């Protein structure tokens, strides 16, 4: 069962979706804040490909970069096409669409976890 990494993957997926949910919440809360620029995460596949392999430390002087350093909170600004006179670029309707996406994808990730656990249990019983 060494090749089984679906739990890890779906955990990364839910972590990604939770972070995205936080950014959406920040955008919606600041929908009327002057000069606030909307934030979003890069697509999950791009985030996943950035994740690198842990390097072995053969010498105490070797430094291992933390996950935070390797994978900075990648938040990019929305385009300025939505910016209003006050310099706010939040598109509330767009945020609601993203909210729906997060809801669906989160259900998918937790569903995968659930099914996968059932498969384990079938193998064990």
């Amino acid at each position: 069962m060494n090749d089984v990494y679906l739990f890890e993957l779906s955990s990364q997926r839910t972590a990604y979706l939770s972070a995205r949910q936080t950014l959406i919440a920040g955008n919606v809360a600041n929908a009327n804040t002057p000069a606030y620029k909307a934030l979003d995460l890069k697509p999950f596949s791009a985030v996943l490909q950035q994740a690198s392999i842990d390097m072995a430390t053969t010498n105490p002087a070797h430094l291992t970069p933390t996950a935070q350093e390797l994978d900075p909170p990648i938040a990019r600004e929305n385009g300025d096409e939505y910016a209003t006179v006050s310099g706010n670029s939040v598109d509330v309707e767009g945020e609601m669409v993203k909210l729906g996406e997060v809801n669906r994808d989160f259900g998918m990730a937790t569903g995968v976890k659930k099914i996968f656990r059932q498969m384990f249990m079938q193998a064990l019983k």
Partner: protein
Amino acid sequence: MADQDALGASLRIAGSGLESQSVRLRVISENIANAQSTASVPGGDPYTRQTITFENALDRATGASLVKVKDIGRDAAPYSVEQDPGNPAADENGFVKLPNVDILVELADLREANRSYEANLQVAKQSSDLMNQTVALLKDV
């Protein structure tokens, strides 16, 4: 547990949004209620329309970008003046200063505040829903 932390942060953010929008609703209702409030002394200034501005506040504990009320200011727009010698607030020439509140503007603002409140409520609902989905994984184990 990083998921739950992030979802908890999003709940807090949505909460701060709800709070700010309620303060905004309070300011709007004060403006509407006082749309006809003249001065208490003859020739004095009437009720001045209040304005509200928000600012982005970083929650240092979670790194979440909350929203808070920056300032409740006073609208500098001129008062409208009306000839009404019988009014107790009229000056010696019979002119009364009326508040610089435009009901239509206030109603439009009211609608916008309402929409923003709903959007924040939607986010809060979904965040707790996502948390519940994760907790539900522990059911029927």
